[in-house]
């Protein structure tokens, strides 16, 4: 299962969650039968000049309608682009947007202004942050969770894999290869049963 390939699978949970992130959308003309989208509006039509933040999948179905304009989500706007260009390493991407790269990729797919800049931003951000991420992941002695909390979804997956690879390598170097271990899900299940027993 490749990290970047599989994620756009129809059944991919991460892809579904990334396309749930919100995009600002504005309606220049009244649109009938969409009153439900705005909780504060009355009647079944959206009045002209309404601005809403809707999920990406819904915006993707509407942005080509007449009078509909979309704006960049705030994390890809110039202000944040400048911050990320200055020093991407210190930004807490988890808090900014949990699916920063995936969602950015989706946003750049709809013809939004600056979409080329977004693509470059995503790549540059990952390149800037990657060095520290790898070094953190393979040095198991430096386990500070403060760093983990700054990572977004793909970065977490990357660091998890780097840690696992590092562990496998050190096991192999210690001639631990032939040992049969308890299976992963069995282990998780046993832990769960043990913890529920401790409660009751």
């Amino acid at each position: 299962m490749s990290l970047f390939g599989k994620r756009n699978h129809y059944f991919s949970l991460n892809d579904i969650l990334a396309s749930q992130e919100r995009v600002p959308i504005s309606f220049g003309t009244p649109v009938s039968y969409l009153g439900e989208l705005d909780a504060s509006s009355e009647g079944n039509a959206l009045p002209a000049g309404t601005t809403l933040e809707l999920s990406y999948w819904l915006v993707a179905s509407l942005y080509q309608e007449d009078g509909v304009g979309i704006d960049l989500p705030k994390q890809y706007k110039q202000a944040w682009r400048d911050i990320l260009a200055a020093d991407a390493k210190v930004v807490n991407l988890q808090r900014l947007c949990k699916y920063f790269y995936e969602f950015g990729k989706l946003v750049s797919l709809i013809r939004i202004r600056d979409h080329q800049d977004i693509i470059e931003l995503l790549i540059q951000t990952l390149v800037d942050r990657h060095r520290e991420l790898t070094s953190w992941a393979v040095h198991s002695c430096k386990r500070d969770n403060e760093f983990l909390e700054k990572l977004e979804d793909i970065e977490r997956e990357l660091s998890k894999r780097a840690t696992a690879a590092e562990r496998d390598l050190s096991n192999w170097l210690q001639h631990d290869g032939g040992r049969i271990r308890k299976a992963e899900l069995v282990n998780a299940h046993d832990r769960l049963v043990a913890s529920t027993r401790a409660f009751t």
Partner: protein
Amino acid sequence: MWGDKAIELIKELERSTEIFPPFDDDKIRLILEECRVLNQFIEDAMNSTFHPETNNYLAGVKARTAALERNKRCLLAYQWNRLQMLRKMRWEFGSILPVEIKANMSEGEVAWFAKYSKALANYMKGIGGRNGLNLMLDMQPPKDLYIEVRCLKDFGKLELDTGEVFYLSQNSQHYMPRSQVENLVRQGVLEHINWS
């Protein structure tokens, strides 16, 4: 909002990567009800006459179609990812699942699991000559034919292919053929000790 229930369902599943969550019947029923309402609107719109000013339903229909597709995708993804987990469990727990996990399965999943087990068993019987080939063995290349194991729980009697009988009681240690006990180690009954 449309699709909110569906995303809750997906989030629930995403949170539990290691444990198997209960099948959420209620939420699925609510999502299907939402789909019915969405579909009703589209059907009504299709039966009314289009007018660019007084009855312009294009955007409404487009948005609702997207919502229908979204709900469908979430429901299918929910079921598919659960089945992937069950399939992995078949390889790790064997054909009998613990009661705690069984309680969280839907009727359809129980039937699917039984069918999968059967198909897998038939396949393993069908390959590798007359005796079949057990794919569950030697997940990692073996170094010795015999291994030393310690019992982690009282398991009872275990009879080997040779007819030899072992009594596996907690904390007892045995020297046994690797091929016969690999599954028990993976299921957490035995622990592999003194490997080299």
